[in-house]
């Protein structure tokens, strides 16, 4: 690990509040950050603010000193009562705010983009903060460049240009450099005992590997078909004598029961609806492997050290939320429309057909045997599905390497360039770069549509800002002139934004520019102009670097 290299705003933290309110996956994905904070300062006290129903999962996450649960369900029920309920909810939020204020946090990180957590951060009045917050006037702001990169990367149009796992971006948003390179949970003994009993109930008739299959998915379009799961499991049970446990929640039983019913082998056991989170962790810990989509149990499996073979269907994107530890296998269908927009339904998820259940069974069996770094020819056609293996790069950032193709996909070159750009520009990591002569750079720029337009506008922006600053300083200047320059700047910004929409690979660059602009603070004209000047400088520098890394 290259410790102590990363550029950081707030490297020292003593009393940290982590706002991580709503999702199980988010909580697990925060574990390297939490562990990293402790690694960097063992005396640091970490408080996590979570939705009441996730308090349970926090209990099995190591390194948390205090869990504060906020009952949003009750709050919303109060609000639904209206009238009195509003006052009840208001009193409740006042109490929560008061309780948190007295803890006197010196740093706060909110990686939930929701408006209410942003407002909460402002209410708490913590000076040093990362992630989403709001300013005094109620506007949402994103503190720290890494958090803006987080927001940029999950922007649908930009997703395919990102190769940084969000766990790392999250961690960097909190200015944490050291970390355990995996997700973490503690498996309590009672949960482990419970699973032993549960598995006895299964009365498996073979001694083959215990394979966990998480069939349910968070969205319909990510839900692999029942018959495909049946085919997969039949293959595993017959060819490899596997013992299969079907995990899931009670709500997922309507998906799971038909799978169980369709499987020919008796060595398929449904545990869905019979495990709480610690018990699920214990089950996964005892399993040889988890076959899953991009799900909460996938992160849980990683956290207990059980490898996963994961299908990233529909909107799921392996680079972004893939399993965060080394040696997991990720299947990303190759399809024009994928990864698709998470907010859009899909009536015909063709991406599901790209994965052959029998081949998947072979891959699973192979991964149980060993860390798979290459695949037999023809097992998976790289034109239909790319199989990735997860690993960590030299700076400790999770990455994926394709193990069934050397060609890579058309976006790979952009992804690589952006990866280097952000690690260098935001993280300050020393990226080895080719010493390109000027002619080479010009040539590359030719191949990178729109990049020259961006660079020239960034320069123009800087020039206009300089003119603006002159006019501001010259008290005798006509206000009309100031208005003219401001108008030109607005026009310029609209153009930059449009270029980002028009040339998709420039999207991340211009989106970072837009976020930076939205985060300007203060009311003093000269101060604002200076900040804006730096935003143009950043854009110019980054566009140049992007060309270099491309």
């Amino acid at each position, binding site marked *: 690990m290259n410790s102590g290299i990363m550029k950081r705003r707030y490297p020292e933290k003593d009393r940290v509040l982590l706002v991580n309110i*709503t999702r199980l996956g988010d909580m697990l994905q925060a574990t390297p950050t939490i562990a990293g904070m402790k690694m960097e300062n063992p005396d640091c006290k970490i408080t996590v603010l979570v939705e009441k129903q996730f308090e349970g999962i926090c209990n099995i996450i190591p390194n948390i000193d205090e869990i504060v649960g906020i009952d*949003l*369900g009750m*709050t*919303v029920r109060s*609000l639904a009562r*209206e*009238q*009195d309920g*509003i*006052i009840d*909810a*208001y*009193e409740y*939020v*006042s109490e929560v*705010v008061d309780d948190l204020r007295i803890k006197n946090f010196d740093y706060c990180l909110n990686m939930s983009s*929701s*408006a*209410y957590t942003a*407002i*909460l951060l*402002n*209410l708490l009045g913590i000076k040093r903060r990362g992630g989403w917050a*709001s300013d*005094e*006037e*109620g*506007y949402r702001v994103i503190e720290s460049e890494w958090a803006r990169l987080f927001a940029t990367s999950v922007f649908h149009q930009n997703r395919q240009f990102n190769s940084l796992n969000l766990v790392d971006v999250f961690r960097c948003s909190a200015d944490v450099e050291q970390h355990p390179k995996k997700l973490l949970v503690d498996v309590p003994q009672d949960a482990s005992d419970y699973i032993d009993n549960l598995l006895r109930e299964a009365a498996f008739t073979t001694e083959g590997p215990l394979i966990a299959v998480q069939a349910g998915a968070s969205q*319909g379009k990510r839900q692999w078909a029942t018959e495909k799961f049946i085919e997969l499991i039949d293959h595993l049970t017959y060819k490899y004598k596997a013992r299969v446990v079907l995990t899931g929640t009670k709500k997922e039983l309507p998906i799971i029961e038909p799978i169980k019913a369709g499987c020919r082998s008796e060595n398929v056991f449904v545990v869905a609806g019979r495990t709480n989170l610690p018990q699920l962790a214990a089950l996964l810990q005892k399993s040889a492997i988890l076959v899953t989509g991009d799900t909460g149990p996938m992160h849980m499996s990683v956290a207990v050290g059980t490898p996963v073979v994961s299908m990233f269907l529909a909107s799921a994107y392996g680079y972004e939320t893939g399993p965060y530890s080394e040696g997991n296998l990720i299947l990303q269908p190759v399809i024009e429309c994928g990864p698709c927009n998470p907010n859009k339904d899909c009536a015909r998820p063709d991406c599901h057909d790209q994965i052959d259940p029998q081949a998947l069974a072979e891959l699973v069996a192979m991964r149980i045997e060993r860390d798979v770094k290459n695949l037999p020819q023809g097992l998976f056609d790289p034109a239909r599905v790319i199989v990735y293996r997860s690993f960590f790069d030299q700076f400790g950032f999770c990455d994926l390497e394709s193990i069934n193709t050397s060609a890579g996909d058309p976006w790979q070159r952009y992804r690589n360039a952006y990866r280097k750009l952000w690690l260098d520009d935001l993280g300050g990591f020393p990226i080895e770069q080719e010493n390109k002569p000027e002619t080479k750079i010009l040539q590359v720029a030719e191949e990178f549509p729109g990049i020259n337009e961006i660079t020239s506008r960034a320069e123009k922006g800087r020039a206009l800002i300089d003119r603006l600053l002159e006019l501001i300083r010259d008290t005798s200047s006509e206000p009309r002139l100031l208005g003219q320059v401001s108008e030109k700047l607005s026009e310029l910004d609209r153009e930059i934004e449009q270029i980002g929409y028009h040339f998709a690979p420039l999207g991340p660059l211009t989106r970072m520019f837009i976020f930076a602009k939205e985060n300007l603070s203060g009311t003093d004209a000269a101060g604002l102009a200076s900040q804006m000047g730096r935003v143009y400088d950043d854009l110019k520098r980054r566009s140049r670097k992007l060309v270099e890394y491309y």
Partner: protein
Amino acid sequence: MGDLRSLAERMKSDWDRRVSHDYRFWMSDGHRDDKDMWQSGERDFAILTGDIKNPQNKTLLEIGCGVGRLLHAAAPRFGRVIGFDVSDVAISKARELLRDYNNVELYAGSGYDLSPIQDSSIDVVISFAALASMPVGVAANYLCEAARILKPDGDLRLQIYLGREQEVYEDDTLHLRCFTHENFRKAAEAAGFTVNTIEELILPIQVSVKEIGLEAVIVKLRRNNSLSVADSSQVAKLLLPSGEKQARRETTISELEYWMALNYARDLVDRGEIEHARETLEYAISQVRDSSVDASELINYIANAVAGERALENEKVSVKERSDYFNRNMAVIKRRFNTLYHTLEQIRADDADLQVGDTPEGRVLVRKGQCLDHQQKPATAAKVWAERLLSDSRFKQADKIAVYGFGSGYHLESLIKLGGKDLLVIEPDPRVLLKALAIRDLTDLLESLSGLALAERVDKDFFEGNVELAIRPQSQVGTAEILQRVKTLFYGERGFSALHPTIGVLGPVMGGTLPIGGYTLRSLLGLNQRARLFEMSAFAGGMNQLEQFVKEDFRKAALRGHYIEMLSQIVIESINEKPIDILICMAQAPVSLRALEYCRQKGIITVLWFVEDYLRFTYWKSVAAYFDFVFTIQRGECLSAIKSAGAGEVHYLPVACDPVVHTPLELSEEEKERWGSPISFVGAGYHNRQQMFASLANLPFKIWGTEWPQCKPFDRLVQEEGRRLKPEEYVKIFNATDININLHSSTERDGVDPYGDFLNPRTFELASCGAFQLCDERAYLSEVLEPGKEIITFKNRHDLQDKIRYYLERPEERREIAERAREKVLAAHTYNHRIHEMLSVIYSSKFEQLKRREKESPWTRMLERSKIDPELHERCKAAFERGEEPNLDGLVSDIVAGEGKLSETEQKLMFLFHVRKQIIRMTEERTGAKGPK
């Protein structure tokens, strides 16, 4: 409890006797003749059943119908009418009186059941003033019987007494029974009814005796569909848990009957009906064996009269007689209430109907036979009244009490004695005050009063401070109009500060009334009321489109009906989402009877501003009964006609001007060219206008508006193809014209309508624009603008032509007249004035109802609880005043990001707002269900 059969026998014998003596006295308040009795029957029947729909298809049954006082009103309205009474004599009389009606069936019943009537066969059962005089067991049995014979959802309408239970012997058939509200409700529900409303009965005569807790009420009940109902003994137990006093089995008439008969005899003497007085005296004396009532003086009085010596025992005190008392009292009034003194000095009124009575506790005043104090124990009764009043929390909390009614002053003396409150007194009848000053020494009382005024002179300043108004029932009688004025002043003014109802204004879809909805809203908001407009004009296109689809009128009418039903539903949904307390419907507002009924069930006060000629547009006949208030632009018969169609209250309220729209304008040359003319008229081409204006064709005359013929000379006079104009356009015409003609429309008469009374909006609007108008003569015009000074009128075509010629040449005169008119309408005839008056009426009449509604409103509690955080409280108050709903959206609706620093309270509310949004979104994601955004 005695058995029902023997109680019924007692009832039968009592009522047979009474009806044989005088059916009009014993069964209907002693009306002089049948015509009077039928009139009172019409009134009471309307109160009881005015809101029942489609009566012609329904069967109505009356329990205790007597001689048919109410059936006479029911017969022409209901399809089938059935009357039940225990008295054979009464039924036989009723057969005679109602012989002209072939849809009436009369039964001399058992006195406790309705046995020949089949189950579930009747739509409406009524009973007026009958149940109260029945033994409780009998009354309870009738309740159960009514439930049996009524169809599901059938209506039961009762006039009974609720309040404090009275001690009445079980076999007493005259004293009034009174039940507590709670017990009555329980009993009615046990009998199978849902109590819909209980309202106080107010009649021109005193019907409630609140001093003893007896309140006359009208109860509207609905037969519910519950299968299990209690038996009548259980119902009786619920009505009066302690039961009635055991029967006395008296053989003679009760003291009450004796006393009533004697007093009636005295009235008959006073009316000059000596022979009947003699019969009545005999009736009283012959039936009673022993009485503790000392009626010797009364008997002597009647007997003397009967003997031909009409010797009134009353002390004769003339109004102007300078008795010692009078002079001393007046001296105090002169010193303390000088203005009143001068007013009283001017009064030369006849006081022949005011008499003075003697009681052991002092002298009392009697007006038209009605004693203004207790007729025997004025001081004792006054003390009871005063104690009761002061125990009421409303009066306890007040610093001052304003008492309506001076009477003989006993009650005021009691109030002073019990103390602690400033006392203001309003007397409706100056003659009463003068006479009271003459018969008693009231100097101490007059010294103690904080205010004393005649009701017609009192103004709103009189009620300044923390005042409560107490109305003496005795003084209420015969002063309905003046009392309304006092109540309007008091409650109306107080309503503006103490009430915060949400008011919905429902405008029409199209037509001339359309802008008035907007003016009304603006005025409501200007008067700091929480108001919103149901803007329906956007639906005009749909309405017009419907008419294109079919040709036949009946189909068009049916489609319009459906369309209005749909629009009504839109209004209902809007009200359900954002509740209102008062709905003001403009004339022609698209609202169905169903929707109005729904509003009333929700406790919304319904108001119709009928700004149309009631003789030409008669749809009020079918809708009046659904409105608590109807405001009209006509008086006289219009008011009584709409009232008898079932409207709650009917008041005169003319249209007006809105100075924001109707205002003098600086017009460009171009505008003057387009809109201006030496003579103009704006309005639709009614018959009388066509007839009149054809003769002005040779003058520089422009006509604007719709429905004008396309023939000569109008093809030349009518501007811009006779299109409909917007208010801002005709305001330009008014401003750009030298002489605006204002001829009120008539479909029947030529030229000026000699019977025209109401004023159109144009009269006020022209004046408000400072525009000169020539207006046709109208009955109400001089009340608004002084003809010759503030407005010029014309009688006929020649007069109009002469005046046009005259005024065309005199711009300065025109300007002066128009300026005076403008000044006048701005001072007294804007929509702000009208709406203020409208609300004063509503607030005065419905003050308690609105206050109660407000007290029960969620806002009240929310405002109270929000005091935990001063800023939150302020925010709640502001949201309330903005007319927001008591929910989170209402509280945050004015928080806008980027408009200055958000306070902590604002941030907390926005936090909650976004939490709710997020959780709803997540729930939708999880369940796949999409909810409303």
